[in-house]
């Protein structure tokens, strides 16, 4: 977005100088966050971007129903949609002055609604064209793959993964270390976190052959640690790539 300014500690209004078009959401971004030029921030509530987070071009943040919190170390990919665009029956007034407490100005709001905050915790990856609807809570180190949809009020546990084209129903929950794969509601699989028992086939083979069992395998957490390390490197590289390519600005 061309109107992005260097970060400040206070909330910034980008819609103050405009009288038409959708309202631009106040943005509070960490100086170390990387936000591309063409990212869309709309709505009346605050959008918070944490440290080290990378937001790819053409991602959309719709803060019409409540604030959006994106914590540190996240990657929001191209055309991902966080929040929900306004519906036609409840279109916001475009010339509404920005405010950190939008519920105070009841004159421009058709009906008082409860704030529905959307939270994306630390080290979360939201894939291209994925949708995280208002009220969803994505816990740390989770992965939302391309074209996945997290409906309203859904809760995605830490270190879990919602695979491409999967959909988590409104109010649904995904436990920690669970992978939702397939299509639509999909199937679920619990990831290995600690040291798992050896496969019965291997144990039986060792018994039959009267040979010692192979050495115990390391805990499954090792794989997750490695993935997070790779994610960290990806963020570093992305931060370098996005700025010259998109002409954006590093915060």
């Amino acid at each position, binding site marked *: 977005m061309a109107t992005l300014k260097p970060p400040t500690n206070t909330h910034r209004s980008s819609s103050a100088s405009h009288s038409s078009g959708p309202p631009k959401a106040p943005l509070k971004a960490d100086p170390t966050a990387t936000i591309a030029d063409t990212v869309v921030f709309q709505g009346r509530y605050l959008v918070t971007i944490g440290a080290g987070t990378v937001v790819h071009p053409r991602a959309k943040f719709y803060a019409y129903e409540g604030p959006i919190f994106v914590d540190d170390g996240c990657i929001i990919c191209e055309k991902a949609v966080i929040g929900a665009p306004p519906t036609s029956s409840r279109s916001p007034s475009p010339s509404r002055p920005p405010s950190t407490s939008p519920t105070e100005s009841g004159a421009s709001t058709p009906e008082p609604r409860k704030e529905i905050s959307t939270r994306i915790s630390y080290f979360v990856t939201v894939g291209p064209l994925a949708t995280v609807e208002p009220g969803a809570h994505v816990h740390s180190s989770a992965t939302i793959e391309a074209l996945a949809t997290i409906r309203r009020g859904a809760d995605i546990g830490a270190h879990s993964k919602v695979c491409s084209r999967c959909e988590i129903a409104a109010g649904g929950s995904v436990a920690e270390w*669970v*992978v939702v794969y397939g299509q639509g509601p999909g199937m679920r699989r619990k990831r290995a976190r600690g040291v798992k028992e050896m496969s019965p086939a291997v144990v039986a083979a060792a018994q039959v052959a009267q040979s010692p069992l192979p050495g115990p395998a390391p805990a499954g957490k090792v794989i997750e*640690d490695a993935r997070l390390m790779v994610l960290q490197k990806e963020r570093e590289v992305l931060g370098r790539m996005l700025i010259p390519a998109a002409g954006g600005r590093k915060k």
Partner: protein
Amino acid sequence: MSRPFPYTYISCPCADTPVPDPARKRRSRESPQKSPQKPPPERANTDQDKKLSAKEEEQGEDEDEEQTFDPRSPRSNFSLYPPEQLLYCEECHQIKCPRCITEEIVSWYCPSCLFETPSSMVRSDGNRCGRNCFNCPVCTAPLAVSTIENATGNAPQQGPWVLSCGYCLWTTLDIGIKFDKPTNIRSQLQKMTDSTPPAALDRSRQASRTFEDLKHPLSSYASIDEQSNARERDGEQAAPKEDQGAPPMGMDARFAALKNFYRTQISETSNSPNDHLSSEFGFSSPGALNRLMSLYASSSRLSGLYGGSKKPKSKPPVMREALTASEGLQVASENSETDMIARLQSPECGWDGMASIDQRATQSPDARFIDDLLPLPVLLRTKRAKRCKSCKHILVKPESKPQSTRFRIRLIALSYIPLPTLRPLAPSSSSALPAMAPTSDLNSLPPLRPIHILLTLKNHMFDPVRITLATPPVTPGRVATKVTVLSPQFEIGANSDVWDEALQGASAPLTSDSRSAALRGVPEAGKVWDKGRNWTTVVLEVVPGTLPGSSAEGGDGNPNTETNDEDVLAVAASRQDEDVLEIPVFVHMDWDADAQLDQQNVGKGSKPDDKVTRELAYWMVLGVGRIQPSL
């Protein structure tokens, strides 16, 4: 038909081999209105005189050629193919469908690593890649070999190594397996899960040998039974001890032990001197046959019938079943089902911990839970050559290298027959007749209103082709649609170089003429609609018929719907996709080919300049659209 309108199918002549029924044809000739399913074909249906003369001529010809192709016939499902799926045999000069060819495997290769597997290794590898290529047992995505230590930065490329799925994040750590080397993962995994005991086969052979002593040819059948019963009684006490002592065998080991045991049993029982049948007739299970024969022989009534006067022979040895664990017998434990149910009900397993049917299909039968699944080596694929069934001529031969997508030989039919394409003629504003139906939506063609369809045939040969089209005046089936080809005979230019047309000035006026003809927008009988370098477009005038029982059907004369009751019955009996308008078109093409290509040509006549006239004829089906149920 599943293709979107309009579509074209070509009928392979291999399915055109039904026994002709002369009586049926006679009926259809005598009363064509009562049975419109089998109207005689018309070569030129634009003129009634031509129709009659063509009919008279064709009556003298072979009756097989007169039979109109019916796209709604059940046999047509097995003969109609999209043009791009057909091949062409240069020896037989015939179109070849997938039923007319035989396939030969050229090479086996892994689609993941693109390594070719020798045919001698394919069976021993179980048709799967013997290297590092695996699929995820949970989601079937390809698995990657990755090291753990490298990721944590301790010691690069030193392992241990795991197989990991990039999609569902399954790793071999989920089943507690790691690998010491990044290569030969298949052999490492096989070594881990190989449950064949080193002495299992020997033990099994020993057990069979001891039983062989019992089944001495001189010993009687009763004595064998007695001894085996005694052994079973002893075994009841001894077997638990043995089973407790011996570890349970794995699935492969048990299979191998059982296979070996029964092979020994079969060989022992079939090699007896009393067994004549196995050697003479080659029965695969002579033991079973012996048992049956002995049953018949022991029956007093049957023995009286079948040579009862003969002396009873010595009873043949009987094949027994596996008795011990070393022979492959596995006695189900009492608590296994209970344990399984308890594990299923436990919170750490639950529904998500159970393996699905798809997951279990390629795994060991014992695998019930996700934790029991093992990574799957990738199935091999094949490259296949295709031969003509009749003349064994090679039609398709790919290069054997898996990395190459090229073909050494590929005789696709579209190189020899013109490619048909179909589109509706949009009537221009100036020339549109008021009676013409708008043809924007082919999924709802109004009945009884004529539409014009443009049929373009594109020639891919380097010789010009003369085409003759013929359609029945009324389509077969209960929905009688009138079809007229406005110019049934025409010529298509050769598929010459594109630059020839540009360099030769003579072709320019042709194009302009054709364009102007197209601009005229009035299809005329006997004239092609448009013509290009190697394509020609002709117009088909189609009057869609009325569906049985539809409101548009009044004085149409369809005998099925004369009264209201019959209407109801006709609607009830309307078959699926009966409203689909499919036009059978008989295509006859002839061209002058070089004689040197084939000395033993099948052409009718030869030309002085070493050219022979070659001809090809086939049926084609044009899927125009769907007829509206009412006007």
